[in-house]
């Protein structure tokens, strides 16, 4: 698993990259009550605001962690936003991306580096 400074995780699954938010981020957000997902088959650039996530307290954006194409979104989150708090690194993935070159992931943080960031 790789991590961004914006508290997103990325996991390689075949030739796709699955993206979600970390447990730390989910805890900090509090109870998630609304999720808005991007349209599948959208080209995005690193830093683009691609999802909206709202907790009882506030609204936040989820940014595209790298350049690529969003090829699938997790519709379950729209129907059950609380899944983000229950299983942030598993069932509550947000979207899957296709990248030109998976080696860009090498520049992201690994588990130890991320733990140090939030420590």
């Amino acid at each position, binding site marked *: 698993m790789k991590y961004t400074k914006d508290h997103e995780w990325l996991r390689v699954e075949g030739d796709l990259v699955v993206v979600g938010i970390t447990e730390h981020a989910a805890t900090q957000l*509090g*109870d998630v009550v609304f999720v808005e997902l991007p349209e599948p088959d959208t080209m995005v650039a690193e830093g683009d605001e691609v999802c909206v996530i709202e*907790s*009882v*307290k506030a609204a936040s954006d989820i940014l595209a962690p790298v350049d690529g194409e969003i090829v699938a979104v997790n519709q379950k989150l*729209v129907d059950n936003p609380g899944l983000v708090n229950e299983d942030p690194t598993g069932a509550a993935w947000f979207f899957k991306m296709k990248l030109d070159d998976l080696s860009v992931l090498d520049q992201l943080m690994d588990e130890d580096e991320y733990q140090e960031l939030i420590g």
Partner: protein
Amino acid sequence: MADLEDGDLLLLGLDALHEELGGKMVPFAGYRMPVQYPDGVMKEHLHTRTAAGLFDVSHMGQVILRPKGSMDDLKLAFETLMPVDVLGLGEGRQRYGMFTNDQGGILDDLMFTNRGDHLYVVVNASCKAADVAHMTAGMPGVSVEHITDRALLALQGPGAEAALDALLPGVAAMRFMDHRVFGDIWVSRSGYTGEDGFEISVSDAQAEGFARKLLAQPGVMPIGLGARDSLRLEAGLCLYGHDIDTTTSPVEANLVWAIQKARKAGGAREGGFPGAARILKELAEGPARLRVGLQPEGRAPMREGVELFAEDGTPVGRVTSGGFGPSVNGPIAMGYVARAHAATGTKLLGEVRGKRLPVTVCDLTFQPTTYKR
């Protein structure tokens, strides 16, 4: 996540207890306060509606007003600051009021209690210094004492009566807006959640022990500011600085119920408060805009600042408080809307992230209140 600059913040008397209970402390109105405990806003909110929640609201201002002459002189002096009937408030009773300015806007909203030979007033934390100055300047014949050595706790929810009566036998007999003194503990049957409950003023020396005893009662949980906000929003209650401020009149704010007959046109003590010209005119002719409840149709919350439009695209108002109502299990909001568009059932559009989404004007109380009248 905002980093705390603890050095700049005032500490509540119960700060250590909040830490011990796992409170997530944030700056609010100059104080370091618990926004939530480990269970989180959603569970804390629902617990308050089904059992009992304990809130530390010691940041609020407690003030004692004593007459230099008679009690009636004090009551009439207080009436010069508010469009509210103070004279008619009996001993042991509490009432809601608001200070108005010369333009008819609201300087602060408050609760006041007739305690026989003096009035006890509770004002908002962010306004308390200004309120004390305003009362001192505005009532020369009155002694204004800002109480700074007492905590204020709120115990709210259907389990509040049994929990508090176990510690202070007799509170169960109180009705909504009654006030009683139990030794050095001052109890009002009121609150700001829409639930039955109590507000309890207790000396700093006794506060922690008393709070621990309440928390030891069956069904009592500590509740943070996050749930306090969602509870009051569901109950349609105003948050000062957001839903009411120096530009909103009490009539626009839909607080006409708090202006008694005696102060209205034709009443025994008509007018005679700051901004009376505007307020009496709005009472007679209706205000230009009105605070209303707003029910978004979809799941997306409409928060403070969301602009509202008529279906033909005309701007008609703005959301002043909004979010997710855990008991309603959906997004809810309140805001100001031009009077022509303020009727219940009117379809409007709220602009969220550039998209105009449907929202319907509705009653302000999203959750039925359970006051013990």
